[in-house]
């Protein structure tokens, strides 16, 4: 295999996942939280593709494409929620969005 071995792919995936986790915990705007979630999903995609190359099995790439479809669905619902929040003049802050709390 030309270039780096699978371990390098996994290392980059782990770093990306950590950065995404930090973003989800740290940021308050739900928009940036969604963007950070995309980073986490892409980190898992990178690991899937790396393993698929390592074991010479295309199944990993099939999973990666399924993850992409699920991410698109998640973005669709998430952005719909954010637009609904804005139309109800609710603050876009994950700390103040407590309407559903019992």
């Amino acid at each position: 295999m030309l270039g780096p071995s699978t371990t390098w792919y996994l290392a980059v995936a782990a770093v990306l996942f950590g950065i995404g986790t930090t973003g989800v915990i740290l940021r308050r705007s739900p928009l940036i939280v969604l963007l950070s979630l995309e980073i986490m999903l892409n980190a898992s995609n990178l690991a899937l593709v790396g393993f698929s190359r390592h074991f010479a099995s295309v199944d990993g790439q099939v999973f990666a494409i399924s993850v992409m479809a699920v991410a698109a669905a998640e973005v669709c619902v998430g952005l719909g929620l954010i637009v609904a929040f804005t139309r109800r003049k609710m603050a876009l802050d994950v700390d103040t969005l407590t309407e559903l709390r019992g």
Partner: protein
Amino acid sequence: MGNFLVWVIWIGAALACISTAVAVISFTNPFYSALALIGNLASLAVLFLLASAEFVAAAQILVYAGAVMVMFLFVIAYLGGRADAPWAGGPRWLQLGAFVVGAAIMIEVIVALVTAADGGLADSAEISRSFGSPAEIGRLFLTDHLLAFEITSIVLLVAAVGGVVLGMKSSAEDDA
């Protein structure tokens, strides 16, 4: 020579990937964050290409960097450029805690990988020329992974319906 070139491109793409990811979570303007995420997705597509996942790389550019990010930018433009400080509000220990948790998860993943791999990931299997081609992925989707394929279509349909329902005007809005 070819190997050296692959290494250079790979390291460049990996560094671009990590730096744009840091940019996404540290920009105050969500518009810049979304633009940085496009760079992140594009450099990830380069990494996918170097792992002989041509179709996944193309789908990444088309679906993610294209369609999904256009949706993001559209919503951000609709909401107006409201800047929000990366870690505005909240006590100081909360910000520190976020970094600690992020670093802890990263270290945990790396340790788990290192102990699980244990040198077994050094040499990877040989691949044929058609590895990762659209034909092969399509064949797998319609044979071995048919159920996942059908469930994905249902998930997308439900998400589309959910988006429409969330966007509908409700009577509760009038008194809100």
